């Protein structure tokens, strides 16, 4: 996995424009690499060569006839397996969706293909996007390409690993409580969780509808911006998608950072954080200061309730969203003597332990008599956390935190303690609850060579500012700190 083979979007474009490579050859090259490395990494669950070559041939034909190429022409793309792709197996990393081939594409996929991107296949993930290590996939864990005894993070572990290992140029992931940003951090790539409503959720197999978002992984912030320019924007098929205008995110990248105020929640560096992670993130903050940013201490007083609120709201919604997997229409069906028995057997066998745990939690918090104490209170905490962000953004232009309190851990190291795993989501769930955009960019490596991520939050629909900061940071050598 040498750097020489790592493509970026502008490199793909230049190679196609100069005739150095055809789109078909490029796809072939990627499939060859996937063939070599996927056995070990397990990043892809399904490949879609027919569809990829057909799209590549369309691009090559356009080149041959001298047509203007769309912005992502020929860019090999990996899609997280919780995103619906017409005719390509979409399992959410779950047995319960075994054999399911959706009859339609998610809006984000449609837009990317329309922009010339080539869908190579579907990437592994924690089952129904529930997890932070990709160890909850029914189809086996993904290994971190940086250190294959380590987890790639989760739940979008396959997308993070695919991009890090150059098995795709860009990838789509989904983030509910950190599932884009944390694997971005663990795999050492740029990964953006856009504002809630910025990217259509149509075709995203829901885990927690009020938190789920689709966002890009790429090896450069510029490539993240290029993908965002295509997938962002109002979709009439998603009532919760926002009508706010979509800026040209790539064009906004070059602006200087001079005078931008970055808020640092001091509490976030106090306890529970790995010393090496703290040191790398603090180094990152100093780099931003060098680039002209002004550091401002801020307080996010309701952070301590975030994990609890998140696991109430997300599991409540999950218990409802996952009800449709009942064996009646698609996916797994385990026969039973009665309808109820068929439901029980199908769901009992189809769902993994973590999914069941969350369905039970969510069912409980919505139950008569508990709704007010849990769900309603969770929603109140959510508003308080959103207010923390809102008040902070009255004083600062962006908020900088670690992405994860720990570097990538070893496979199996944390599976015995789900609560410990939940608590490690602390820096990402706050932004999920508040609906604001957040990006993870590499901020150096630990002594063992493990990537550390720096998270930059912006106000709602402030992706352009987040990308501007991350891009400048990356260009100034943030990854090598």
């Amino acid at each position, binding site marked *: 996995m040498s750097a020489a083979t790592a493509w970026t979007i502008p490199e793909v474009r230049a190679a196609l424009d100069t005739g150095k490579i055809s789109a078909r050859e490029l796809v072939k090259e990627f499939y060859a690499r996937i063939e070599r490395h996927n056995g070990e990494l397990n990043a892809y669950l399904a490949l879609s060569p027919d569809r990829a070559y057909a799209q590549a041939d369309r691009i090559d034909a356009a080149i041959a006839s001298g047509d203007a190429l769309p912005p992502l022409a020929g860019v090999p793309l990996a899609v997280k397996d919780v995103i619906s792709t017409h005719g390509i197996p*979409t399992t959410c990393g779950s047995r319960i*969706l075994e054999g399911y081939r959706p009859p339609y594409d998610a809006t984000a996929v449609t837009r990317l293909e329309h922009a010339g991107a080539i869908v190579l296949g579907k990437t592994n993930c924690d089952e129904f996007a529930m997890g932070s290590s990709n160890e909850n996939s029914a189809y086996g864990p993904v290994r971190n390409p940086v250190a294959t005894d380590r987890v790639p993070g989760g739940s979008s572990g396959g997308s993070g690993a695919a991009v890090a290992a150059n098995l795709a140029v860009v990838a789509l992931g989904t983030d509910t409580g950190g599932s884009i940003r944390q694997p971005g951090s663990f795999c050492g790539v740029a990964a953006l969780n856009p504002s809630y409503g910025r990217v259509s959720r149509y075709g995203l197999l829901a885990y*927690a509808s009020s938190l789920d978002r689709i966002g890009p992984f790429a090896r450069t912030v510029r490539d993240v911006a290029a993908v965002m320019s295509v997938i962002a924007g109002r979709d009439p098929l*998603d*009532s*919760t998608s926002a009508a706010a205008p979509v800026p040209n995110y790539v064009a906004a990248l070059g602006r200087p950072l001079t005078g931008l105020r970055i808020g640092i929640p001091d509490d976030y560096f106090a306890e529970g954080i790995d010393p090496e992670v703290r040191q790398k993130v603090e180094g990152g903050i100093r780099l931003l200061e060098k680039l002209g940013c002004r550091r401002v201490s801020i307080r996010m007083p309701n952070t301590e309730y975030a994990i609890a609120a998140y696991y109430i709201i997300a599991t409540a919604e999950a218990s409802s969203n996952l009800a449709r997997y009942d064996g009646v229409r698609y996916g797994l069906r385990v026969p039973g003597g009665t309808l109820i028995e*068929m439901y029980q057997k199908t769901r009992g066998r189809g769902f993994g332990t973590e999914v069941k745990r969350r369905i039970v939690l969510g069912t409980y918090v919505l139950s008569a008599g508990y709704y007010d104490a849990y769900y309603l209170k969770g929603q109140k905490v959510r508003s308080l956390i959103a207010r923390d962000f809102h008040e902070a953004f009255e004083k600062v232009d962006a908020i900088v935190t670690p992405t994860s309190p720990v570097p990538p851990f070893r496979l199996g190291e944390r599976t015995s303690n789900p609560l410990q795993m939940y608590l490690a989501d602390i820096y990402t769930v706050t932004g999920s609850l508040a609906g604001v955009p957040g990006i993870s960019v590499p901020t150096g490596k630990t002594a063992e060579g493990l990537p550390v991520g720096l998270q930059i939050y912006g106000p709602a629909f402030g992706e352009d500012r987040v990308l501007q900061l991350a891009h400048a940071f990356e260009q100034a050598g943030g990854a090598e700190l």
Partner: protein
Amino acid sequence: MVYYATLMAKVTQDATGILPEIMAGYEPVIGLEVHVQLKTATKAFCACSTRFGDPPNSNTCPVCLGLPGALPVLNKRALELGIRAALAIHLNVQETSRFARKNYFYPDLPKGYQISMYELPLATAGWLEIEHDGQTKRIGITRLHLEDDAAKNLHEGFADSAEKSYVDYNRGGTPLAEIVSEPDLRSPAEAYAYLTALKQVLLYTEVSDCNMEEGSLRCDANISVRRRGAEKFGTKAEVKNLNSFRYLQRALEYEIERQITVLESGGKITQETRLWNVAAGRTEPMRSKEFAHDYRYFPEPDLLPVRVSAAWRDEIASAMPELPEAKRRRFVRDFSITPYDAEVLASTRALAGYFEGVVRAGAPAKPAANWIQVELLRQLNDAGKEITESPVPPAELAALVAKVESGAINAATGKKVFARMFETGKPAAEIIAAEGFGQISDTGEIERLCREVIEKNPENAAKYRAGNEGVFKFFVGQVMRASRGQANPQAVNDTLKRLLS
């Protein structure tokens, strides 16, 4: 494999005949929950057609099949019809309402939840007037909310129906309005009158076609009994599956008697859901294990709160047609017809329109009302036709009424003419002329008229007899005038010639 447990029920208590005087000691308390399918071209949350009777599962898409990842988008027309219905029954339309998820498992519910307004319904606190026993009573309406319909489980009609059930998702996702009344109804007859009045309003406003056979109007009842004079309500049972006016009344009668029987024999009413068994003619408890649901409602995160601006609400209100109550009042006031006639004529918008068409074409209102109710409605009924299919247009009925009223033809003849008009679709004048309905061919009558004319005009008779044949035309004219043109001209000629010769 048997997929769906049939709704087996054990019958706990059979209602046995109770003495009427014991029955009279109790007062039933009834509230109705009525579901109406809104008359939209497409479903509540997707663009699939709502057409009834299409091949199974042909009107489906990822959204209404509940495929993973598909999202609902509210049909604005469904919302508009909901608002129109709400305004017609005097509800307050809320500025903000919100859909929630009602969670339960069933094969006809592909998402595992129904999208239904719960805490924040579209409209609250209204009323509807019913006419019963010559009295007008105002029935409170608690709320109206919108939701999507379930699909249809098919347990019969397939070669392998013994071991399998099928699901047709065509109906799934059709928009419904649920209208919940206060427990203000005190008898099955009042419940019947309420449902009648509600259906009339919904048809008037074109919110729903209220076709009970196709399931576009469905009714559940909450019912309890209490000792007459008692203030506290008794324990209620919910009775489902009351999908015709007849079943509603019969099921309520049965259930009232059952509850009184239980109480009279010292028992207690269990709060439960019961099902009207059409074949057995009784209500039966539904298996509680399957239906004791905790629906775990929570706000639907895939939809934004529904906002109805005052401007939009007013726009819908201003486009509202005249409602039955108002129309009845106007008919009595402007046309001086009886309240009973007004009720019949205003029972549907089409009939009321027909009546007003007849009056507008010049017919006096009272006879027009009679002709419509006695002749037209009977003929339509016999022919199995709707008023909109009447072969006799309003203007033609008006022409016929005018002829009868002026005495040009008598009432008995008028009815015969009407029957022919209904049969042929031809105008009254044409039928009268062609088929001789207007003519007097009775020679005795004609002779009497001729003699009268000759007696009144002795000079002209003398002139004729003296050879002045020109005066003959005068006699013919006079006889025809005396017969109002109805005498058979040939007969008049012959008779005059005979009498004058």
